C-alpha cells in the first residue's frame, strides 16, 4: 500500500458522520472504477444481494460518469435502487491505489424495487423464491422517489458540514500549537530578560539561558562556546557552557565548538544542519545527527557560537527552533556586551579608587597601606554584622577612601615630626569634612559620604566633626571608625612598634560604649584577624624604613582625637 495516511483519510467519512449514518440505517458503499461495490458495516442481506449481483455491477459501471457528477444527488441504478455519492475531497493523488474506492455513496432503497423485474431476476438468479423474498423486506424502510432525492441532498450537506468541522478542528489544533510555541517563546524571552542581571557572575546567566533553551526546544544538548581570542571577554574568554545530560563528553563538545567557531561562525543567521557529516567537523557525528547553530557577534567579530544537537522526541529541528535560538543568541550578545561594559566600568572605578587611596597613603607615608587595611577590616566587620552583601561592598569602598580629605591638609602638618600645636591638630581634624566635600558631587559615591565624614565620631559624643553620639552616628561611620582605630593601634608605625594584638583587643573592649558602638565592638573582637596580619606583612615588605620618623599619632586611642 503505497498510500500515505492523508490520502486514505480523504476517501473515508469523518467518524461522526459514519456514526450518524449508522443511526439513520443508511448503508455506505465504496464504489470502484470497474463498478464493483463494497458495502461498509451495517448492510442488510437485501442490500448485499443487490450490490454483489453482476447485473447491478455492470449497470453501475455504465453509469460511473453520471455518478461522478452527481454529488449530493441520488442516481437511480435500478428501479428503487439509489446511490447518492457523498462529496469526498478531490485531491489529486500522485499514485492511484486500486484498493481505494473511486466513489463513496449512500445506498437508498425505494418502494419501486418491490415490483421491479430486476428484483425478480435477482431472485431467479440466486434461486430464491420471489414472493418469500418480498415478504421478508421491511416495506416501511423503503423511500419513495422524492424522499430518496431529499435524503441524498441532506446527506450531501451533512457530509460537507462534517468535513468542514473536521478541517476547522485541524486548523484550530495547528493554530493552538503555533500559539503554544509563541507562548513558549514569549515566556522564554521574559525569563531571559529578567535574569539578565549584570551584577551576577555572567556564567550564571549564560548557563541558565542555555538550560532554559535546551528544555524549551527539547534538545539533547545545547552548548555555548566562547572564543578565546577576544581580550575584552576577560574571564569569559574560551568558556564552554553546556546544558544537557551529565554524562556528555565535555572535552569533545569543546573541541567541536572551537572548530565550528573557526570554520562556520560567519553570520548571525541561525543554521539547521540536517546531516552533520556535511560540516566535516571532527567528533561532531559522535555527539549529534542534526545540528542547530547560531553565531554570537560583536562589532562584526564572532564572540561565540551557540550550538545544539538532536531533538529528544526524535523529530527534526524546525524553523521554530532556529527562530528561538536566534532570539536567544541576540539576547546573549547584548548580555555579553553589557557584561564587558560593566566589567570595564567596574575595574576602572576600582582602579581609580585605588589610585586615589595610594595617593593619600603616599602623602602620609608612615601610614602606608592604612586605607586598604581599614577597608579590609570594615568589610569583615560589616559581613560579621550580617549586612547585605551589596552594603558590605560599599562599606569596603568607603573604608578605602575614608581618609581622602587628607589631600586637603598641608603636608607640613601631616608629616610634622614631634608634637602638634592645637592649631595644627585642628587642621588635621578638618580631613573628614574636606573628604566629604571632595565626594559630595559624585552621584555614585553619595552613600559613602557618611563613612568619610563620621569616622572620627565617638559613641559618647566626644568625637568630631559634629559630636554625634550613639546611633546618631551613621553605621558606615561607626564601622570605619572602629576599623580605623584598630589599624592605628595594630600596625607598625615608623616611630613605634605595633601594640600586641591582645592589648589592642583589650583596648577595644575597654572603649566599647565610650569610643565605640558596643554591639559592633563585641562583634569586632571576635573576628578572624588572619587576613589583616597577612596584609600588614605584605605592606611591610614593600615599604622602606623612613629615617627621622615623626612622632605624631593622631589616632592614638584616648588621645586628643
Amino acid at each position: 500500500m503505497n498510500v500515505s495516511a492523508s490520502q486514505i483519510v480523504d476517501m473515508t467519512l469523518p467518524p461522526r458522520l459514519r456514526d450518524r449514518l449508522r443511526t439513520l440505517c443508511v448503508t455506505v458503499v465504496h464504489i470502484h472504477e470497474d463498478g464493483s461495490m463494497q458495502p461498509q458495516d451495517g448492510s442488510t442481506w437485501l442490500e448485499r444481494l443487490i450490490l454483489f449481483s453482476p447485473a447491478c455491477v455492470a449497470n453501475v459501471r455504465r453509469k460511473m460518469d453520471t455518478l461522478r457528477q452527481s454529488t449530493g444527488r441520488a442516481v437511480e441504478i435500478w428501479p428503487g435502487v439509489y446511490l447518492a455519492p457523498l462529496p469526498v475531497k478531490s485531491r489529486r493523488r500522485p499514485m492511484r491505489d486500486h484498493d481505494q474506492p473511486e466513489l463513496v455513496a449512500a445506498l437508498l432503497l425505494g418502494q419501486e424495487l418491490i415490483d421491479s423485474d430486476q428484483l425478480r431476476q435477482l431472485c431467479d438468479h440466486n434461486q430464491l423464491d420471489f414472493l418469500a423474498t418480498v415478504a421478508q423486506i421491511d416495506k416501511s424502510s423503503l423511500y419513495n422517489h422524492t424522499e430518496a432525492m431529499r435524503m441524498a441532498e441532506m446527506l450531501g450537506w451533512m457530509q460537507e458540514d462534517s468535513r468542514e468541522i473536521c478541517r476547522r478542528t485541524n486548523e484550530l489544533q495547528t493554530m493552538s500549537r503555533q500559539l503554544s510555541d509563541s507562548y513558549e517563546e514569549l515566556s522564554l524571552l521574559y525569563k531571559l530578560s529578567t535574569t539578565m542581571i549584570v551584577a551576577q557572575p555572567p556564567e550564571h546567566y549564560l548557563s541558565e539561558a542555555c538550560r532554559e533553551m535546551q528544555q524549551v526546544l527539547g534538545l539533547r544538548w545545547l552548548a555555548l562556546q566562547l572564543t578565546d581570542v577576544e581580550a575584552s571577554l576577560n574571564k569569559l574568554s574560551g568558556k564552554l557552557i553546556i546544558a544537557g545530560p551529565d554524562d556528555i563528553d565535555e572535552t569533545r563538545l569543546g573541541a567541536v565548538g572551537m572548530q565550528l567557531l573557526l570554520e562556520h561562525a560567519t553570520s548571525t543567521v541561525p543554521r539547521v544542519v540536517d546531516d552533520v557529516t556535511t560540516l566535516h567537523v571532527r567528533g561532531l557525528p559522535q555527539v549529534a545527527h542534526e545540528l542547530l547553530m547560531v553565531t554570537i557577534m560583536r562589532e562584526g567579530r564572532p564572540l561565540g557560537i551557540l550550538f545544539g544537537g538532536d531533538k529528544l522526541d526524535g523529530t527534526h529541528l524546525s524553523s521554530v527552533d532556529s527562530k528561538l535560538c536566534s532570539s536567544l543568541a541576540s539576547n546573549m550578545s547584548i548580555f555579553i556586551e553589557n557584561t564587558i561594559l560593566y566589567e570595564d566600568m567596574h575595574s576602572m572605578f576600582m582602579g581609580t579608587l585605588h589610585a586615589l587611596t595610594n595617593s593619600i597613603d603616599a602623602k602620609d607615608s608612615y601610614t602606608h597601606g592604612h586605607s586598604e587595611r581599614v577597608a579590609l577590616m570594615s568589610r569583615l566587620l560589616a559581613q560579621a554584622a550580617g549586612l547585605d552583601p551589596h552594603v558590605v561592598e560599599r562599606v569596603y569602598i568607603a573604608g578605602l577612601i575614608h581618609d581622602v580629605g587628607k589631600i586637603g591638609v598641608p603636608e607640613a602638618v601631616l608629616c610634622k615630626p614631634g608634637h602638634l600645636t592645637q592649631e595644627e591638630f585642628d587642621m588635621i581634624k578638618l580631613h573628614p569634612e574636606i573628604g566629604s566635600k571632595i565626594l559630595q558631587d559624585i552621584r555614585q559615591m553619595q552613600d559613602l559620604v557618611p563613612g568619610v565624614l563620621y569616622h572620627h565620631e565617638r559613641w559618647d559624643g566626644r568625637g568630631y566633626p559634629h559630636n554625634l553620639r550613639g546611633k546618631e552616628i551613621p553605621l558606615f561611620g561607626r564601622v570605619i571608625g572602629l576599623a580605623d582605630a584598630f589599624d592605628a593601634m595594630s600596625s607598625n608605625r615608623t616611630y613605634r612598634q605595633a601594640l600586641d594584638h591582645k592589648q589592642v583587643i583589650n583596648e577595644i573592649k575597654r572603649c566599647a560604649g565610650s569610643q565605640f558602638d558596643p554591639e559592633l565592638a563585641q562583634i569586632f573582637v571576635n573576628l578572624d584577624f588572619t587576613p589583616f596580619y597577612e596584609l600588614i606583612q605584605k605592606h611591610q615588605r614593600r615599604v622602606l624604613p623612613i629615617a627621622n620618623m615623626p612622632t605624631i599619632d593622631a589616632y592614638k586611642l584616648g588621645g586628643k582625637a
Partner: protein
Amino acid sequence: MDNEKPLILVVDDETHILHVVSLKLSNAGYEIITAEDGEEALELALKHQPVMVITDYQMPFMTGLELCIALKQHEKTSSTPALMLTARGFSLPGDALKKTNIAGVISKPFSPREILARVQEMLSHQFTKDTGESL
C-alpha cells in the same frame, strides 16, 4: 485504558488559552474538560470531579479565586488541588489563598511546557500522598 486518563478541568474566559493548555495536556495523556467562567467550572467540577483544576484568575461571573474557595467548600471537591493562572505582577490576597487548595500560581504569558511540568509534579505529589494515606 481511556477511562483511566486523569481528568483535568481547565477554566479561562479566553478560549485560545483553553486551546493551548488543553492541547498540551491532552498530548501528554490527560483527559481535558473546559469551562469559560467560574460558575460553569464549578458545575462541571462537581459533576465530573476532576483530579485537578487549572483556572484563570480574572473571569466574568465568578473569579478563579472565588471558584477555588467554592471548590474547597464543597465536599466532593474539597481536596481537589488547583493551579492558578494570573496576569504577570498580579498578586493574590494571602488570606483568601488559605481558604483554597491553590497549590501553585503561574504568571501569564506562561510557558505551556511549564504548566505540564507543574501538573505532573502536583499530581505525582497527590498520588504519593493518597497512597501514603491508604497504607
